[in-house]
């Protein structure tokens, strides 16, 4: 609780938290704010923003409500970003724990696999994966996680290597716990906090990768995403640049909110450690 209040007192943390809470509420209540399908046609095409009070941000090339698309797009961006980070953290910490705990040949083999995933550009990997399996939200999540799990895996392994030598692990071994049981119930929970600190960076980069993938047309065509809105607006970039610019600003604010929150959190946590 103390950390939470300290987070609120730092300007970065407070702003980041406010931005993300607002975005999360928008995403959750998107169906309440705009109950109709955001991909349905509601007005004349290419209506400029602020010209019609019922369509505050205007309409796109096909006469769809830009604000409704933007609100529904928040859902896809946040969901993909958070889901990809969760998948990456779970895979990464499990493999890292396994490598660090097993040691020897298994460790060596797993770390070479981590190396292999790290030298292939994450975006190219996601591009190839989505193009092979087909574009839908779960596939995009998995594709992004494939390029992001190596960081958590390396960190978890390093943590496990240091925890493995502690006394309480030796004690667990003495009372006859099985190695897998020790790894999952004693080592993993203690190795997790530093790995979790990576989560904000992964969420932010996942949101950006998802946007870039849908910009290239590799996303579910029935789901509005900010990246696909930018791509759609690109067709009329000269006559209606706002169609590409508005969703880009939304993306930037979201990612900035994630970074601000993580800065504030790191600040609050380090101050607690300094005082202890």
């Amino acid at each position, binding site marked *: 609780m103390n950390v939470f209040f300290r987070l609120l007192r730092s300007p970065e943390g407070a702003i980041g938290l406010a931005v993300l809470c607002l975005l999360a509420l928008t995403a959750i209540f998107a169906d309440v704010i705009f109950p109709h399908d955001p991909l349905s046609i509601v007005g004349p095409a290419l209506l400029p923003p602020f010209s019609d009070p019922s369509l505050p941000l205007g309409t796109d090339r096909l006469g769809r409500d830009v604000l409704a698309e933007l609100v529904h797009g928040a859902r896809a961006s946040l969901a993909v970003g958070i889901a990809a980070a969760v998948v990456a953290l779970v895979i990464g910490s499990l493999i890292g724990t396994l490598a660090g705990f097993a040691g020897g040949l298994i460790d060596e083999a797993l770390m*070479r*696999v981590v*190396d*292999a995933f*790290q*030298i*292939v*550009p*994450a*975006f*190219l*990997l996601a*591009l*190839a*994966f989505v*193009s*092979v*399996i087909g574009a839908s939200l779960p596939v995009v999540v998995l594709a992004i996680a494939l390029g992001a799990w190596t960081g958590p895996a390396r960190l978890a392994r390093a943590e496990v290597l240091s925890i493995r030598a502690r006394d309480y692990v030796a004690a667990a071994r003495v009372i006859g716990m099985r190695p897998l049981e020790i790894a999952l119930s004693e080592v993993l929970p203690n190795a997790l906090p530093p790995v979790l600190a990576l989560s904000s960076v992964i969420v*932010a980069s996942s949101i*950006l990768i998802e*946007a*870039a993938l849908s*910009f*290239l047309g*590799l996303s579910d065509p029935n789901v509005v995403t900010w990246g696909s809105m*930018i791509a759609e607006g*690109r067709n009329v*970039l*000269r006559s209606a*640049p706002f169609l*590409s*610019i508005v969703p*880009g600003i939304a*993306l*930037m*604010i979201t*990612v*900035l909110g994630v*970074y*601000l929150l993580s*800065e504030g959190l790191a600040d609050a946590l380090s101050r607690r450690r300094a005082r202890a």
Partner: protein
Amino acid sequence: MKRAFLLTRRRLLSSIPVLLIVVVGTFLLLEAAPGDAVDAYLLSIGGGDPALVQSLRESYGLDQSVFARLWLYTSALVRLDLGLSVVFGRPILEVILERLPNTLWLMGSATALSFGLGSALGIAAGARPGSATDRALSIGSLALYAVPSFWLGLVFSVVFAVQLRWFPTAGIETIASGKEGLSRALDIAWHLVLPVAALSFIYLALFLRMMRAGMAEAWRQDFALAARAKGLARRRIVHRHIARNALLPLVTMLGLQAASMLGGSVVIESVFAIPGFGRLAQEAVAGRDAPLLTGIIVVSAVLVIVVNLLVDIAYALLDLRVGAAEPSA
């Protein structure tokens, strides 16, 4: 120089199994794709009878098992033979080598700009941690760090190419301009200004933040206190002691971000229609060209290994401690 040689040899040896994992993994991934090269080829020529399909499958080797083909692919790879592209109907290595220079120019310029400007601004911010300059640069870099590069590219092209007409909107050089030598180089540089700026801004923010953090850390160390106690001028402390110590991690980052920048160039090249390596990847995806996509991923892995090797050698030359413990046998 001997240290650098030993480091190179050890690095190259250890990268062979990693590269093998990349090859096998990519091959199996693309094997899972529905349809094969024959389907893609038939689609491009407008169909054919079953006898043609059969003979094509045989000539492509697609009638054999997955593992036989994986073995064939890997053994051909050793001879630098990446196979034939379905979309282009030419050797894949040839197509890739044709496109690679454009991307290398783009990435090289973006790296130079982001590293140079980023570390310079980082020094300005880290010279007095907590000052107004520091706060402004830190917040500005965080905002820059959150900008999607492809969107920034679009904004740049709207503002500087469409509205102001300072730079061309797309392409790598003026088509059929007949320019030679220096004027052609200037033409290419002029076309690269916007894409390089769009690609490098996010890394500029990264280098700025790393430099600033490293300098803030260095100020707390004893040697900084000693330098101040000696009565050295602040400028001299900042440049000779603080910045110098904060620079080494940036060199490491130079290698680490190579893979991510190569991925970023895919979207930037698509925004600015630059016929480079990244755009080739998108063309391979659009044309369902699995052999070409495999080749692109393998070449990008090799590229990242080479960049990291160069960075390691640079690091060894800058920091004499690196590799000194290397067994000399």
